[in-house]
């Protein structure tokens, strides 16, 4: 039986073009670039940096591989570089090349200018990812401009969180202030998320998107924000007694960042749907107020 993609559907439906693989790109890209940035600061020594940077690049690479697996014509992937004038996807791709080059060079040299350049390019890459979502005008949960600081903030959280995890695992201890940085990043993410959510709540969203985001937000505030924040504060005060607190907070901070992006990219991606600002006159009568089916407002 052949069925219309969305037979007769007038309310927004979940877009079907980007699935978990797209979320994977944002997860990999955010975590990888965040980690690349914090590796610069957190690595206790060159070898630790090398490992952290390699993990970071692996994250970014895995994300891009997800995208490559998702596109319809993977062997034309080179065409992604054709449109730097306006396409944030092209820009992301164009940043990815020097990002990997600098990242690998930084790994090779274990320090020097490439470390800083890789970190900087990572931030640019992360910014591109935020703008990719913002430019998706067809997805109301993505196009909200405050998604860009949210993507940046959560990228930093994921990077800092993973840095905290890795420094705990790698030889040579990382800086004690890393927990504070992670806490700061978490606070930034809390602000970014709150501003983002308030913005979409105010401007309106497809009801189904809001039905995903609102309950998610309640849980995220607790598990994604409050839990690692309290853990970190406890770590700052009781770190000597309970050395795993920062490690745990880092893990939770990173994982909930992935959860956040998976939710926004793969679960709240309801499209715009359709709307009539006014209803047509049928023969005679008055123009009536319009309708925007399936929207919160």
């Amino acid at each position, binding site marked *: 039986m052949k069925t219309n993609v969305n037979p007769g559907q007038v309310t927004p439906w979940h877009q079907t073009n980007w699935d978990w693989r797209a979320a994977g790109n944002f997860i990999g890209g955010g975590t990888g670039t965040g980690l690349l940035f914090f590796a610069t600061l957190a690595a206790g020594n060159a070898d630790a940096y090398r490992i952290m940077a390699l993990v970071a690049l692996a994250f970014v690479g895995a994300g891009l591989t997800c995208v490559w697996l998702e596109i319809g014509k993977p062997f034309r992937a080179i065409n992604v570089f054709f449109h730097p004038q306006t396409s*944030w996807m092209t820009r992301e791709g164009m940043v990815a090349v020097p990002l990997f080059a600098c990242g690998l060079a930084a790994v090779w040299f274990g320090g020097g200018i490439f470390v800083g350049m890789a970190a900087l390019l990572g931030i640019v890459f992360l910014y591109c990812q935020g703008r990719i979502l913002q430019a998706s005008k067809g997805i109301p949960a993505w196009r909200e401009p405050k998604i860009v600081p949210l993507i940046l903030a959560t990228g930093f959280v994921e990077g800092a969180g993973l840095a905290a995890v890795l420094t705990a695992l790698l030889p040579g201890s990382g800086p004690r202030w890393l927990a504070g940085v992670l806490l700061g990043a978490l606070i930034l993410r809390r602000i970014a998320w709150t501003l983002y959510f308030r913005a979409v709540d105010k401007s309106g969203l497809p009801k189904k998107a809001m039905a995903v985001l609102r309950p998610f937000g309640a849980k995220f505030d607790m598990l994604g924000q409050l839990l690692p924040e309290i853990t970190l504060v406890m770590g700052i005060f009781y770190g000597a007694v309970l050395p795993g607190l920062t490690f745990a907070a880092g893990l939770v901070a990173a994982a909930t960042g992935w959860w956040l992006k998976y939710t926004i990219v793969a679960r709240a991606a309801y499209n715009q749907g359709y709307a009539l600002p006014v209803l047509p006159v049928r023969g005679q009568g008055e123009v009536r107020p319009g309708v925007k089916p399936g929207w919160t407002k």
Partner: protein
Amino acid sequence: MARYVMTVDLRRCIGCQTCTAACRHANATPPGVQWRKVLDIESGEYPDVRRSFVPVGCMHCADPPCMHVCPSTATYQRADGLVGIDYDICIGCGYCAVACPYQARYIVHRREYAYGDRPTAQEEARFDPQRMSVAMKCTFCSDRVDLAKEKGLTPGVDPEVTPACVNSCIAGVLAFGDREDPNSNVSQLLAENQFFRMHEELGTDPGMYYIFDKK
């Protein structure tokens, strides 16, 4: 330069889907892929209820978000306002599809047939391998519009160079023509009637004008 647009007289539309079927024929789209379709939208509460029929598809925006996001430049805009896709360049990333606020784009990854797992003679004859795994959408029947100059015909007036949906419409809902020409059929309609464009607040400057009442 011309800017080709479509007008949709919502007062007339009855949701019969003749344009939907005509488009499926003219553009040989696979089952379920409707570059043109008519929505059936109910609003209000019993007994004060209205039902509106709304033809939708690619709006051929003057400021098309699909084109801006396209990483490969496969999506392009012509001088006459039509937004097209170069199937040879498109990588099928779907970015245009999420950028389009009109849900107008389709990507089909495997062949589907009307009946079972084998194509009918028509489906076989019209199959276009170029369109597999790339973005596709309404073209405003640009292949027809392109014939206009060569044949000395006017899009929107002469059926041979007019989009199939417009030709097919049995209630006189759809019209096509040059918005820049004050004497064109669409300019006349828009001069005489009140209209809106869908999701205009998103800044897409869409090329489908919905007429809802006389002036």
